[in-house]
């Protein structure tokens, strides 16, 4: 037998719930004429129908996976691309800061001040880490 779709399982659950509600209403309206055995029997049916409806709603929610699997991989793929662009841009910021350190290193070298050169190298190494 072919597997139910999430929508079909949900429609069945709605139907079971409606039948259960009708069964319950019948019991509530006629309790005065029902024997104890009949009353228990109808209550048993009422509860069973509700349980089945509940199981079908749960089943339907799980079956949704079949409907959304391609959409989930597609959105995850988009999210990965967004994150990659984000990282690239963060790298741009990092590159700018590194370039700035290189400019300072260059100026230290040009000024021929060893202490400044050492400081600038330290700074550059820190930026690269």
């Amino acid at each position, binding site marked *: 037998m072919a597997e139910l779709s*999430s*929508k079909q399982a*949900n429609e069945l*659950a*709605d139907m079971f*719930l409606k039948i*259960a*509600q009708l069964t*319950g209403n019948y*019991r*509530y309206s006629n*309790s005065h004429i029902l024997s104890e055995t009949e009353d228990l029997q109808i*209550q048993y049916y*009422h*509860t069973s129908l*509700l349980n089945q*409806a*509940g*199981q079908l*709603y*749960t*089943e*339907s*929610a*799980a079956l*949704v*996976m079949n*409907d*959304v699997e*391609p*959409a*989930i991989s*597609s*959105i*995850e793929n*988009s*999210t990965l*691309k*967004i*994150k990659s*662009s*984000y990282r690239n*841009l*963060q790298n*741009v*910021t990092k590159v*700018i*800061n590194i*370039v*700035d350190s290189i*400019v*300072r290193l260059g*100026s*230290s070298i*040009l*000024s021929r*001040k060893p202490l*400044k050169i050492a400081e600038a190298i330290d700074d550059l190494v820190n930026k690269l880490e």
Partner: protein
Amino acid sequence: MRVTIICVSAVLFLSACVNLKYINDFSASAIKGVVKFETAGYSFTQICVEDCRVNKINLLDLNVSECDCKADKKADSVTLQIYRGIKGYLDGLNKLSAKKLSTFKIEPLSKSLASDDLGSLQIDKKYSGAYSAIAEIVLRATTDQYRSRKLQEYIRAGNEPTTILIEFLDFNLSSNLSGKLDIRKEQLKISYFNLIKDQSLSAYEKRRAVEEYYNHLDAVSIQKKKLGTFSKTINKIAVGHQNLSNNLGRMSAHEIREQIKQFIKDLNLINQEFTTIKNN
């Protein structure tokens, strides 16, 4: 030539900024709405455990055995996976469109250019600031243009899966979980009907039972209202995303601004409904 570059950069910068701001505003509001899922406590497992407990009370069952909620856990994991897909995507849009992503530390560059250590290469301090400003505009224009172009691409690609995921998140909550709450109402009625029929209870005990029944019904109604409000929120997000996807790069800045303003206003109104439900 330099003036032309600056002007072109400034125009590109402004148009990219417009798109980025709208995408950022849209995604920030959408995230605020969609995270209600985490705080509202919508769960199949929770309903299963509570129903199981109600059954045990009805049957006067003191056996503290585990309730079998495996199927409900699976339903929750599917729903959670859909939610995470949507949330992750919106977070990505929000981060990539954030203003701070293209804020560069230009000030040190300006100091370097004006440094006394440059000797004959030294640039006059009054010009070093101008060079830095130009560098900043060009840098931001380039990165903002890149971001704007990339985001338009991602939003268009993300539109169909977002629509599908929101549709099924809504289906699981508004149809399936809400259906389970309707079942809860029926079960409550069975329990309390049996109590009222019980001739060993006094009139006072029966009245207390009826009061308890109405309190339980109110709790279920609040849960259902929350589901209804959440459904409105995510459907509004789906429409907002669709509009963004259709109109980015096509509509005028003014039209998009109006559209996003309306979107934020609508979401805020729905959010107020949430607060009202909580306070009731």
